[in-house]
């Protein structure tokens, strides 16, 4: 298989993935938009107006980057985990496994599909945010790089979850019990400067905290941490997760008997 064949195989996987989440847009694109819209209305408008400033910004402006990031993380992850697990469950993944597609092309295809959905939902949420907040992007390059790398990391994490999952319960455990608490405690709704020292230290152990803060820095120009930390952590996660995914595909974990 030469590189043009590999590119066609990659495009095929991506097109299939995008076709899947756009075909069921009522399940994939609308619910996150509604949920985040409710956050804007309730936390931003109703509660936020009583909170006043946060980190030197209007509360609504402060939470917008975190909410966009939350949508991107959740949707990048859930697209890959649900799509790949469904293909395992229906055994349609065998179509791919019998074909001469290298493991890294399979991985990148699914990851690109996950990123497409994550970024599509992120774009919808950003468009909605324009109705509630005065959104200006202070550092476009940082904003774009952080969101792309975060989406990449969580798409790969979703892939690993799908590889290990044996039932539909297994694909909801990590998002419910791990991802959601980490996102909520990652400083979406508050600045860690408000927390006691101990809880500030605990927040520092949460990788999502760095991602949200770096993204907030890209949009607002303010952050609780040094942005370079976020890039270092994101880069480490990219390398570790990519290597883990490729290793599992090579070992055929959960895919071949």
């Amino acid at each position, binding site marked *: *298989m*030469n590189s*043009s*064949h*590999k590119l*066609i*195989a990659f*495009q*095929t*996987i991506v*097109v*299939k993935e995008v*076709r*899947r989440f756009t*075909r069921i847009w009522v399940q994939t694109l609308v619910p996150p938009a509604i949920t985040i819209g409710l956050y804007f209305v309730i936390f931003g408008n109703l509660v936020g107006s009583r909170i006043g400033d946060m980190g030197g910004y209007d509360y609504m402006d402060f939470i917008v980057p975190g909410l966009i990031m939350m949508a991107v993380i959740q949707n990048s992850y859930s697209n890959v985990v649900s799509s790949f697990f*469904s*293909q395992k469950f*229906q*055994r*349609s993944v*065998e*179509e*791919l*496994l*019998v*074909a*001469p*597609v*290298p493991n890294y092309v399979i991985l990148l295809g699914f990851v690109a599909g996950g990123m497409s959905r994550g970024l599509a939902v992120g774009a919808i949420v950003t468009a909605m945010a324009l109705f509630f907040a005065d959104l200006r992007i202070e550092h476009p390059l940082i904003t774009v790089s952080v969101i792309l790398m975060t989406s990449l990391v969580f798409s790969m994490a979703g892939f690993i979850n799908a590889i290990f999952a044996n039932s539909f319960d297994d694909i909801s455990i990590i998002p419910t019990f791990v991802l959601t608490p980490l996102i909520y405690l990652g400083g979406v709704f508050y600045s860690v400067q408000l927390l006691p020292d101990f809880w500030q230290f605990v927040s520092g152990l949460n990788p999502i905290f760095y991602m949200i803060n770096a993204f907030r820095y890209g949009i607002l120009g303010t952050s609780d941490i040094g942005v370079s930390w976020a890039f270092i952590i994101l880069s480490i996660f990219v390398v570790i997760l990519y290597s883990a995914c490729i290793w599992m595909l090579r070992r*055929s974990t959960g895919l*071949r*008997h």
Partner: protein
Amino acid sequence: MTTAIAIKDLRKTYANGFEALKGISLRVEQGDFFALLGPNGAGKSTTIGIISTLVNKTGGSVEVFGRNVQTHVFETKLDLGIVPQEVNFSQFEKVGDIVMTQAGYYGLPRALASERTEKYLRKLGLWEKRNDRSRSLSGGMKRRLMIARALVHEPRLLILDEPTAGVDIELRRSMWDFLTEINATGTTIILTTHYLEEAEQLCRNIAIIDEGEIIENTSMKKLLAELDQQTFILDSNGHIDSLPELHMENVSLHKVDEHSLEVTISGGQSVNQVFAVLDKAGIQINSLRNKSNRLEQLFLAKLTRDSN
């Protein structure tokens, strides 16, 4: 002649300790129409799984057109088309998209993929269904869709794992014609089936696998020649009152009912002599059929012998 597939001492023991393959060896020549038969759980699907890389082997080797499937993964996959036993495409996708997607996995450019998709969907009578969701297809259509999908990259070796299971006889015969046509163009075909008449009709060579071991591997002709005894049912339009005396060795004649006779012939006796005696006795025979499928008789005999 080039060998399409060479299996040497292939072994598979699953994680639960079940030994599915106990060192089988097999050769299928290029252009052959080969039957791999065996009862349920004999190891047929495991063998196909290992060839297609969906199952990891425990030992031995598999070569496809002279290339090891483990060391030349991509080249051997290009040569292989697999039609699995169970439906394994997305039930939510459109028929045309399923075939187009498979073409994409093999790196076919879009124009060629569209052309091949149309070609095989038309040949298999699914072109009109190309925009339908696959879940709306009947069982027979789903099987045909899997064949179209397996052929879209035009492999040199097509492996079909019970492709006509649950398919009605009319459709089955049209699939036989299609497979014969594909084989005539040079595609090597390996077929597993529970319909032994299908294997007898289509295949030139045969292997019988039982409990993870090959118990027979020969040509269909040689195998059928082993069958020393055949039983025919003769139907007559007239009323059969009594049976004539045959005075023939290795032939027995019984009355089934007022219009049918059963004749068992062995030791190379000709059925013509029986017809002559019946004709003399005024019994006109309108039709003749085998009481049971010849391969089926042999298959059961082999399995029984093996288990004894």
